[in-house]
């Protein structure tokens, strides 16, 4: 038991490090393709964290949808862009300083808030062994209790579809 917990902690730190390093890579790299691949690394780290929390469906969707489909789309778009101009671009000292300031203030704030909680003050219960799979539970919730938001999301997707057609079709007829 003891060993398993140490292992879980170790894995948590490893995957968190991957996620954070990937996220940093996205903003530090100047080459958009490298940034996109760093984003995939961040998504994979996140997916592992979700799976560690027994949220298998969320973890798998993170990899399939974000790591796979969305990133392929991103890469396509990046390939169509003018890469050289991206590489040449320089950021002003003011912009970098302001960005750093805001994020440092935010992180300090977050750390202060988190410091207010004592470790272990809220412990997640262990799932019962005979519980339904998370796919089943999420599916049930979405189509029973949460059917109203799901319907609204349908309208949202309709708007997005119309928008994509109107904004990107080459020759509107």
């Amino acid at each position: 038991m003891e060993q398993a917990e140490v292992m879980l902690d170790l894995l948590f730190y490893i995957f968190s490090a991957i996620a954070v390093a990937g996220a940093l890579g996205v903003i530090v790299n100047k080459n958009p393709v490298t940034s996109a691949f760093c984003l995939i690394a961040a998504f994979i780290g996140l997916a592992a964290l979700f799976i560690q929390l027994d949220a298998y469906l969320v973890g798998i969707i993170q990899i399939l949808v974000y790591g796979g489909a969305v990133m392929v789309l991103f890469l396509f778009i990046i390939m169509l862009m003018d890469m050289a101009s991206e590489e040449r671009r320089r950021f002003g000292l003011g912009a970098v300083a302001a960005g750093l300031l805001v994020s440092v203030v935010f992180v300090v704030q977050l750390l202060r808030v988190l410091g207010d909680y004592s470790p272990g003050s809220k412990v997640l219960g262990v799932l019962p062994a005979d519980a339904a799979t998370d796919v089943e539970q999420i599916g049930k919730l979405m189509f029973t209790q949460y059917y109203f938001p799901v319907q609204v999301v349908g309208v949202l997707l309709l708007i997005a579809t119309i928008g994509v057609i109107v904004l990107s079709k080459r020759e509107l007829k």
Partner: protein
Amino acid sequence: MPAYYLEIIVVVLGLTVLMVETFVSLRDKRSLGWLAILGLLVVLVLNFTVVETGGEGGNTPFWSFYVMDIPAQWFKGLALLATIFVILMSVDFSRVLSKGICPEVEDDGVDDCAENQVALSEFFALPIFICAGMMWMASAHHLVSIFVALETVTIGFYVIVAFMRRNVGSLEAGVKYLILGALSTGFLVYGFAWLFGVTGEMELGAIADALNAPDVHRTGALFAFALILIALCFKIGAVPFQIWIPDVYQGAPMPVTAFLSVGSKAAGFVILLRLLEPFMASEMLNANVTSVLVIIAAATILFGNLAALPQTNFKRLLAYSSVSHAGFLLMAVASAPAHPGVVSPVAAVSYYLAAYLMMTMLAFLIMNLIRVQRGDENLEAYKGLAKSSPFLAFAMLVAMASLAGVPLTAGFVGKFWVFVLALQEKHYYLVAFGVIGAAAGFYYYLKIVKSMYWDSPADAGSSAAVPVVVAWPTRIAIVLLVVGVFYFGVNPGALLSLFL
């Protein structure tokens, strides 16, 4: 009639507009705009007939996401009215719109794209879907339904802000709105996550109970409040999250700017009121929440009014003016409820937003006509308007007087209640900032009146001397709005009695 039928009818109306465009060959697609306006008017009438609860099905899970109370009904009405005026403007705007969408034509070629009124039906349909989203926002009472309704509205706005895709200004506005909108959504979801973490609830009534319990974690709750406030300040354009407003308002097509400044703001405020209610009701958090709101309100009033002073582009000026009105509205939001004999903050905000809708839509209807017929959005174009089009000049005078807060107009009553509420709460510094802001407002609003009535156009023989043509539907709308500004300015009880 159950309330949720309203949104369903609106969505079906949007689909109908798209389907009619696809399957019926119309000579002039502007008639789709009339169809949309007619449909929305019917829904507006139906909005008065809805019953408050679901009756038999009142216990289904649906009613934890959706409430029907007086503010919900009121803001649904505002959303419908705003959309009607926006589509009315879009009908006038269609010529400029096709210029922003179609490629340049060769000398001898026939302009197929403009001839076919390309994408015009989408320009009518998208505001209808957004209107449905705003109506869901007005009724949303659960973190999940708030989020999906808000995103429906925001995604729709991303599209229509960038709608004139060959116009650099419109594209720039679209990108800026997209990036900052996505950022604010991130803050909102993070705030919701904290709120859920602290309270363990997602329904606002249950959250209020949880925040009132003695064992709630104060720091966590305040952090959730701060994150949510940041996100909503983006939506309503409060300092320091107002940076996107001038550029986006200036770049977006005129009807979209009007929609953003009225519809989006009203929807943002209804969500703000709903989400702040549990925090304001909690005795432990009340003092901190109020002080943050007071500071933001003071900064917003000061920035909005002072930055508006040097503007020469009318749209940009109204953008800063909308920031300043957000400040005045926040003044009311920062006042706690429960003072007998005075209007509640919810009533004051609702009235103010109705007044704001009337006067801003009035200004935008006229700006839209000038933009289409004279091709100019700058204050220059308004010089000598009183001579060439006295009717429009008078209507604009009413709009500006009401925006500035001249007595006997709806704008004055709105500001009056806000100041009464702030004095009641003894926010004296805030009142002082409000007075400075209102005084600065008089200068830049009346500057427009001066140039319409006392200045003569730079070159007398040009288009400025030609009267502006006003089609009869637009004329009716302008007359109704002018009458409304005066009627509800003299007799505010007609609207406020709904809340008493």
